[in-house]
């Protein structure tokens, strides 16, 4: 029986890796990948918690549901990125700064 804390350690490591990618990468696609990391870190927590809910499998269900939504949102995000690239000829997040003051 693998204790819950191991899952949480894995999840936290995965989340921090994702966070790192989100914060430092110079490519929006890589940012997106970092976001996926973080989503999946959260899902690991859901699945690990779902282990103690054997009747309803609420954690697993939420994870599945979230994966579907994440896939959809990734599709939307990629479409946005494509448009951004058309407009800026770049996907470096530092250059996408038209919203600054």
């Amino acid at each position, binding site marked *: 029986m693998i204790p819950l804390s191991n899952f949480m350690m894995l999840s936290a490591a995965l989340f921090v890796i994702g966070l790192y990618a*989100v*914060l*430092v990468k110079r490519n929006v696609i890589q*940012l997106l990948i970092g976001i996926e990391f973080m989503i999946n870190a959260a899902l690991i927590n859901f699945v690990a918690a779902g282990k103690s809910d054997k009747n309803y499998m609420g954690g697993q269900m939420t994870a599945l549901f979230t994966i579907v939504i994440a896939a959809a949102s990734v599709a939307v995000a990629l479409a946005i990125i494509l448009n951004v690239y058309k407009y800026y000829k770049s996907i470096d*997040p*530092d250059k*996408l*700064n038209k919203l*600054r*003051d």
Partner: protein
Amino acid sequence: MEQHDIIPVVSLLAVLMPLLSFVLCMFFVPKSISGKVAVSSIAVSFIASCFVFFKIWNAGNIHIQHHWFTLGQTSWDVGLLLNNLSALMILLVSGIAFLVHIYSLAYMKGDENIDRYWGYLSLFCSSMLGLVIADNLLLIYIFWELVGFSSYLLIGFWRTRDAAVQANKKAFIMNRLGDLGFLLALMILYSQFGTLDIEKLFGDGGLFHLSQFTSGEWIAPLGHISYVWLLVCGFGFVFGALAKSAQFPLHTWLPDAMEGPTAVSSLIHAATMVAAGVFLLVRVSPIFDSTVLITIAVIGIFTAFMASTIALVQNDIKRILAYSTISQLGFMMLAIGIGNNGAAIFHLATHAFFKCLLFLCAGSVIHEMHYAKNKLDADCDHQDIRNMGGLRKMMPLTFVTMVIAALALCGIPLTSGYLSKDAILISSFEWATTRSFAAKLIPYLAMLTSWLTTFYIARLIFKVFYGELRIQGDKTERLIHEAPRFMLMPQLFLAVCSAFFLFSVNPLSYENTWLLKVFPGSVALERIHSYHTVIPALLNLFAVLIIYFAYIQYARKEKAMFRENTWLYNFALNGWYFDEFYHQAIVRPVTYVSKFSFSIDRKVIDGLVDIVGKSGVLLSSIAGWLDRKLIDGFVNLAGRAAAGLGNFFRSFQSGRIQYYLAVMIFVVLTFFVLRYFSPAI
């Protein structure tokens, strides 16, 4: 009764026509027809005056009034007073003005400001005619000023000439001095009687005759003052008249006034305006007591004598005539002084004709000389009689008319001047019989003056018309010819008027003159028969001798009897140094005082103002500094603080997503850390 309604209207027409012409010439009609407008208006005025004269003369006075304005309790009337005196004057003024207008048509032809000339001349005629028919001393005063003003305008008509500008200023200022006396007299009369109406004051049973003189007091209906004020009042009128009639000591403006056009000199400074002083004295003559009268007589004879001596040696043809005018006006003053107003007015009338004629002839001569000078391009004074000579062959008609005028001026029988001058001389002898020794000198001085008159006018005639022309040039004889027709016609007409028959059927005795009979006072003196034959005979005998001497001296030039460089000659040539004296005694001190007060004004008053101004500038610069540094400092500080704060917060808005995320995470982490270590939150 109908006539009494129409006469005032007609006389008003005579005054208003020139005024209309003035307005038209100055503002409405083009230059080319301004002359026609002025001449036709004065012609209408002349015809109206003739009508008025024949209706009024010896046929009773007309005095109509109309309410003018009310000052407090006092109501003022404006009106016309037509009696023998004003009827004669209105005819004289408009008649001579008419002739001079015709003369001016030719004389002023081609002047570039001709419309201004006609306008001014019309203004003068209107004010002079108004002056003679006004019924009220205040109204007379107003017209008196207007006459002086239009004379000022006309003297300075050629305004680009410096001498003309100086002359008109001088004339105006000296006339203003006289006006002061006039005004003073008016104020005294008004305070004593409460009216300035001539008829009410001096008419039969008028207010003035109601005043009583007891123990040095003058008791009048309204006032009760010292007798001295009666003298002051009389001298005030006299002073006013002295300035207008160019008598000593205010005579020096008239010779300078000759800078105006000759036609103007003829009308204004010989025939009409200068006679206004005499006219005024006759109008107010009841007010003069014996002291004032003797003063008038002395001033008159002194002026006559002085001016005639000056005229002896002048070289400018117009200045000779100007001094002659002063001298003749002196005779009129003498006549008033001895109480013979009729003789004064009679001499005024005859003098108006012959002196006007003399000036017109002089104008013709100057006109031709000027023409010749311009043609020959000669550099000489065309008014200097030393440059003239021999003109009788070239201008025969002018010569004849001028000789007639000169004879009238000398008082040779068969001329009008003989009658009027004898009237004055003989009555002055009659007057002196009952007076002291000093007073007896006056008629003798008058006689001497009369001979001097004969000499200077003979000198003028012989120098101008006899001998040889002294202007250089080959064809000068052909250049100078008779004056134009429009200039000759008035001359001929005036020459006829200078003869005796216009005034009396008897050429040798003035006593039958129609003009004298209507004036009271002229027959009041006791008649002394011997005077009436001896004096004219003596006068004319010497006059003929003097003319002969002048002929030898100036026409034939056989020998020079008079040297021309003695101090007496220079004394007369410089007009007894009156101008010099006035310049040193009055003009220079006044200029000095004005300069002094000017410097005070500039240094002290302006200095004070400057100090106030400078301290104001200093104060405001301090205030400005405070404002800029202190008040603005606070405002700027607030602004800068806001800007700094804004910039600080703005620096967060970098537009970099990752930066925002990092901050967000940092904040959340901080929250959790705080939450973890302090469970109280």
